[in-house]
């Protein structure tokens, strides 16, 4: 597009070309509906690090979630074209940007993809207005003074528009070094938008900001994604941010895609223990499968023995080795999905969803019944700590495992995490060291498909 525009030397033609440019580009910006897809397949070796990414998701607000060093930034840069992967393909909305097999690599300049790196990369020698002006698509060659003046006015208006959208009025002549983090971020966004991108890539955009500003900017981002329908790919390691913003989440770990899905998919059904940890499900357990009484080949697990992550103390190992029936916590029961081909003591892994656990006070007296009428299992636990967590309260509870001690209860090293609202906590409030009853329905148990990617 750019080179074509430079060759023209006729005002009418130039205007027509510009209109065509807008017509061609605009629909792709606005038509961000479910039929458009982002398809990324990358294989690249960078020193000791191997990148093997493969996902295909609808365009919208896509979040690449992963811990540091997982390869998210590399993926982003490959989509932008700044990294030329050794193998693979990148297709945005049907347009092939990169295909190693076919020998296609569209240079970054022609991809019309906006990229906002970490720390924003604002030009320090230009004012805010000049930064945004820099990104505007080049106008066709100057043909006459009037046309040039008109173009200049058009560009100025565009800059003013962008400034007002992101609430940056009054900062036009400031230099980036004099702005706060939040202001710099918004300038970076305005600048990326100025280039009229088809796709916006943001690399940990809110990382360096304080919590209050982060909240507001997330809202702003969501708003203008809806308003302008520009597809966004955002990289973050913060699961709360991913939850708040994403239409689709791609979990990246060790250079590979661990899971792709909607927000609920990821949070309610993480595929591996690592993904679970990443999205904030901390009640991960690895457990031994207790053989069912009738020795069927395919049967749901009936009980689990929580294995502590560190070498167990002498007492618990004595307990577990001496008596098979002891040391087991029962699982809720029949609703659990069957684990194929698990016979005997095999290790399985899963998590207990914190939002499904119900916490109640332990009434004085005898041990509460193991099973409720609805088929949930009831465990007893000891409260280790209750942490105030914003609007929520985070409880850390040791579950009891039936064992050898005199009153029939035994402390395990495992800790369960439960979140209660403040109101709920007021109902059950006990001191640390006191006992609580945990009611766990079968839907709280989620078993991972695999232990690792």
């Amino acid at each position, binding site marked *: 597009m750019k080179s074509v525009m430079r060759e023209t030397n006729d005002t009418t033609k130039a205007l027509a070309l510009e209109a065509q440019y807008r017509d061609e580009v605009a629909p792709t910006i606005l038509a961000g509906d479910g039929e458009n897809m982002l398809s990324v397949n990358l294989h690249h070796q960078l020193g000791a690090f191997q990148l093997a990414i493969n996902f295909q998701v609808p365009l919208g607000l896509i979040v690449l979630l992963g811990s540091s060093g997982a390869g998210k930034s590399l993926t982003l840069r490959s989509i932008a074209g700044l990294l030329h992967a050794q193998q693979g393909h990148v297709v945005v909305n049907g347009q092939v940007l990169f295909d190693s097999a076919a020998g296609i690599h569209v240079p*970054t*300049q022609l991809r019309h993809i*906006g990229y906002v790196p970490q720390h924003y*990369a604002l030009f320090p020698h230009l004012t805010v207005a000049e930064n945004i002006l820099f*990104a505007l698509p080049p106008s066709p060659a100057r043909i006459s003074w009037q046309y040039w003046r008109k173009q200049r006015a058009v560009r100025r208006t565009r800059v003013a528009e962008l400034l007002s959208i992101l609430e940056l009025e009054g900062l036009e002549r400031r230099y980036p070094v*004099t702005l706060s983090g939040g202001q710099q971020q918004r300038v970076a966004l305005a600048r990326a938008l100025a*280039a009229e991108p088809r796709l916006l890539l943001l690399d940990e955009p809110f990382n360096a900001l304080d919590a209050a500003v982060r909240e507001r900017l997330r809202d702003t981002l969501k708003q203008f994604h809806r308003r302008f329908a520009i597809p966004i790919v955002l990289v973050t390691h913060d699961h709360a941010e991913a939850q708040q913003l994403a239409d689709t989440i791609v979990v990246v770990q060790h250079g590979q895609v661990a899971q792709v899905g909607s927000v609920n998919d990821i949070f309610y059904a993480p595929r591996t223990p690592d993904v679970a940890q990443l999205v904030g499900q901390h009640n991960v357990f690895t457990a031994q499968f207790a053989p069912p009484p009738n020795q069927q080949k395919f049967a749901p697990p009936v009980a689990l023995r929580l294995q502590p992550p560190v070498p167990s103390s002498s007492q618990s190992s004595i307990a577990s080795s001496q008596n098979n029936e002891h040391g087991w916590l029962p699982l809720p029961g029949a609703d659990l999905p069957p684990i194929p081909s698990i016979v005997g003591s095999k290790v399985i892994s899963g998590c207990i969803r914190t939002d499904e656990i119900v916490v109640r006070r332990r009434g004085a007296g005898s041990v509460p019944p193991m099973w409720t009428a609805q088929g949930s299992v009831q465990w007893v636990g000891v409260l280790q700590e209750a942490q105030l967590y914003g609007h929520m309260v985070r409880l850390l509870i040791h579950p009891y495992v039936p064992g050898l001690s005199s009153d029939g209860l035994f402390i395990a090293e495992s800790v369960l995490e439960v979140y209660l609202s403040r109101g709920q906590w007021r109902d059950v409030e006990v001191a640390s060291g006191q006992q609580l009853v945990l009611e766990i329905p079968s839907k709280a148990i989620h078993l991972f498909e695999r232990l690792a990617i």
Partner: protein
Amino acid sequence: MGRNAGRSILAILGVLLLLYLVSPVGYFLFQLPWRAVPGQLADPTAISALVTSLLTATVSIVVIAVFGVPLGYILARRTFTGRGILTLLVYLPLVFPPVVSGILLLLLYGPYGPIGGPFTNAGFELDSSFTGVVLSQIFVASPFVIIAARSAFEAVDPALEQVAITFGKDSWEIFWRVNLPVARAGVIAGLLLGWLRALGEFGATVVMAYHPYTLPVYIFVQLSGTGVDAALPLALLTLAVSFVGVSFVLWTQHISNRRKVA
């Protein structure tokens, strides 16, 4: 060692060297027969030599800027086989004693040289002329500019270039509108250094282009012919010119930085 002792040691080391550098100039100014100076400076040949020095140094630095700053940029930003060797070559003029540089240039551009011969026969001498002085100065001053420019460009955040690429800018625009302005301070410092070096060049110009007189050569002629007393006021001239030049550049840098500080 106490904290204060450590700080003092650093300061003392620096001050000692500074004193050593400043004291000859200070003593020189102190013992100069100031009354005689204006008369001695009225020498038309001296003024002519001064003007020649200023013009040749400025022409040289402009040529070096046009060709050397892009070279510094390429050495900093592009990777290619032979980059190490190319960097080494840039250091070459620094390695040679200036007299040797002059001889090398004369071999090529002198009246017997393959390039200089045709020019001289056509009546346009490449040695012993304004052009000869400029050629010598470009040779000796280039490394300063190229190396400073390379350092300055290396210090530019690569992310700036990356976002500029995504805006559709081509290589030239990125160099001219992103890398160069951001690296400007370092590049200008390098140009200043090169200008001063060109201004003070003696060894190569003595061999390659004795005439037209530049100020350092003329000072030497005065020294040989008339004596130390004739040479000192000219040294004063050199000092004044360099001082004015450096001050001007530093002042403009200061002005342009002031409006960007938070």
